[in-house]
């Protein structure tokens, strides 16, 4: 039986730039930083979620990754067609303003979604698309009827 997701990864164009983005702009902490030869494994995570980390995998040829693979992956990452994730927040509008003030690029401001959330969409500095999502308070059908 599977218990939980512990580690996943996203492709980044430059690990140093990505590390700065995730720690200094988004407030992540460093979970692992291991160098072996010319390979560096670096992962980050949220303080509020200590059991989960994301590897910032460098887009450069090595191992099974050819130069052609890297070229293709880089194109997809830059275009926002590859990496993505959803980050939960208690206050989408405030977090949106905080991140925007730090220079995070948003492709969509906080917007009411029909499935019970408020969501904004931003890009990391490689191009990976991330959603900032706030759950709206649960309403009973009767409350919804009354409001309508």
């Amino acid at each position, binding site marked *: 039986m599977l218990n939980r997701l512990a*580690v996943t*990864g996203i492709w980044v164009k430059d*690990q*140093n*730039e*990505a*590390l*700065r983005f995730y*720690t*200094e702009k988004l407030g*992540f*902490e*460093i*979970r*692992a*930083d*291991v*160098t*072996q*030869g*010319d*390979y560096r*494994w670096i*992962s980050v*995570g949220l*303080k509020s979620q*200590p*059991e989960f*980390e994301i*590897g910032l*995998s460098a887009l450069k040829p*090595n*191992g*099974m*990754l050819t130069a052609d693979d890297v070229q293709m992956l880089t194109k997809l990452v830059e275009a926002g067609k590859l990496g993505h994730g959803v980050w939960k927040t208690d206050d989408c509008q405030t977090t949106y303003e905080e991140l925007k003030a730090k220079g995070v690029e948003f492709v969509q401001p906080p917007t009411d979604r029909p499935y019970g959330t408020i969501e904004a969409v931003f890009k990391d500095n490689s191009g990976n698309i991330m959603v900032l999502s706030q759950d709206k308070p649960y309403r009973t059908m009767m409350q919804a009827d009354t409001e309508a």
Partner: protein
Amino acid sequence: MQHHEQAHLARRFLDRGYTTPITIEQLSQEVALSPYYLIRLFRRIYKQTPHQYLIQLRISRAKELLSYSDLSITEICTDVGFESLGSFSALFRKSVGLAPSAYRRSSQTSQKSVYIPLCACLLHGIHDTLDP
């Protein structure tokens, strides 16, 4: 003695002595090779020059000390073998992506893993050890 063994010895020498000043002349004398030949041989085997490897060792140790110790950044700088705080900070930032103080702020966590996940090892061709 095979020359790759001498490169291995040179790496061992750096592993043991990276906290002290080491010159390429000293290192090449230790393994009885010319500096130029040693640099080329080392780079062929380990994909980096002895100097790059030495800096990597010092930076790696500095990262550990920033994460797990209360030593000041100046103390860490000298403990890992750098003679100037300015060059340590500049090299650290260039190599790691963050200034030493920012790295310390972002890495002092109780949940720290010190291994490369197997999936990443398989994808990137990483072995358990660097030894050839």
